[in-house]
């Protein structure tokens, strides 16, 4: 995830310049670099501890709207995991809890042109795949990532109702939301990591 935020920094900056203040790329890169450092420094034992550590790093380092939203997302995901193994159902539940946290903090709905537009279809796809018998965690994340990509793309024609882009009115139409895009990129990075493509 940190590598993806590093690679995609300029892209996210560009999206956030068109309908924001140009800092989303730097914020995400900084936050996930801090998360990586924290993980390397503390070597957390369980998956829940990993997510909590990431959450704290994001809250402490991302800043802006995305910091509390992603931070809460990781924290809520951590709360539904216990033990050292994560099943496909666990993964889908974690994503669902993450979405719940984002919606509770940010009060956005699908169609508002935010993270929620990518994460909502991601959760639905994750739950569907998790319900099937040959499901793997990797497949859950891959489905989530693909759905998030579609969701992020769906933000292009929308008028924003939340966040900085909402001040633009109809001028935000035709531009992809940066937060929805980083959601897609994070899920894709997770999927690739689980698929062994790193």
């Amino acid at each position: 995830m940190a590598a993806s935020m590093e690679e995609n920094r300029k892209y996210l900056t560009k999206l956030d310049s068109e309908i924001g203040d140009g800092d989303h790329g730097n914020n995400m890169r900084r936050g996930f670099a801090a998360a990586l450092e924290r993980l390397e420094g503390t070597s957390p034992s369980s998956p829940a501890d990993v997510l909590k550590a990431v959450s704290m790093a994001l809250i402490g380092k991302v800043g802006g709207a995305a910091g509390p939203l992603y931070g809460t997302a990781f924290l809520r995901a951590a709360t539904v995991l216990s033990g050292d193994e994560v099943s496909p159902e666990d993964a889908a539940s974690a994503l669902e809890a993450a979405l719940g946290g984002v919606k509770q903090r940010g009060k956005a709905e699908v169609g508002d042109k935010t993270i929620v537009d990518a994460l909502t279809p991601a959760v639905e796809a994750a739950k569907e795949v998790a319900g099937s018998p040959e499901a793997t965690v990797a497949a859950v994340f891959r489905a989530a990532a693909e759905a998030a990509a579609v969701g992020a793309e769906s933000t292009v024609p929308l008028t924003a109702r939340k966040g900085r882009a909402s001040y633009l009115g109809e001028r935000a139409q035709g531009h992809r939301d940066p937060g929805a895009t980083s959601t897609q990129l994070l899920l894709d990075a997770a999927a690739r990591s689980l698929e062994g493509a790193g």
Partner: protein
Amino acid sequence: MKKLINAPERVVGEMLRGMELAHGGLLRLLPENGVVLRADAPVQGKVALVSGGGSGHEPTHGGFVGPGMLDAACAGSVFTSPTPDQMLEATKAVDGGAGVFYVVKNYTGDVLNFEMAGELAEAEGIQTDYVVTNDDVAVEDSTFTSGRRGIAGTIFVHKICGAAADDGKDLAGIKELAEKVNGNVRSMGMALTSCTPPESGEPIFQIGDDEMEIGIGIHGEPGIQRKKIEPADNIVDEMLDKILGDSVDFSGSEVAVMVNGMGGTPLMELYVAYARVADRLKDEGVNVWRMPYVGDYMTSLEMAGFSITLLKLDEEMKGYLAAPCDVAAGRPF
């Protein structure tokens, strides 16, 4: 991108260090947390005022820390809200036992981060409250957006609440006063040029040589309308019409006026604009109280542009605005 800096990622830290070196005796830093405090914090028995936001708006916020205004200001990365741990450290450092009041500008990031900070502070036994300022009239229909933004009018909240806190007002009273100020202040901004944040290295938006952006915010984000540039008087008229036509009825009242430069507009031009503001207010039967504030107060790096703020005053607000304060942004010569 040409800037007087050493490295983009070091700008904020070096700026804060420069402020502390310049104003030691008035200010001190929590350097690990990017927080500027009044040097004598905590002031026992007084409600402490904490504000903050992204860097790049100087003198906002660090320039307004000191007796009579803010107790602490949290500095985020350029145009990026500070984080809850910064705010918590600031809160603990200024807590004088009478509660801590956050002045938050209405941007989702600022609001969410300060909300989390308040939760953390309450968990540590510090009572907090906050106001979310939203003086910008540029965004009309706030039902379908994140609501109106907080811009230069926020500084009047800093000043009035700061004086009131010095005067012994309690946390509930500060909250009530802050909401009163916020409810009576209206602003609008515009830009002639964009600005370039150091870490991105690119201008936030492109704008033509003969264009202007009306309804600009303070983070370099695009405004509500792109138009061909017009004479200053026309621009002032358009902005004042929106401010005067908004939900605060200014007619016959006394107002505090701020003509605020975004950073790249010469003071000479701000006075040209003020001449029109003064003429229009006189025509409209609105009385300018004492002297207007004309200068760079809440900037957007090197952006050329300005904002107009009117605050409808009552006796209480006048008294607090007139009260002395000692802050880096208002040092006598």
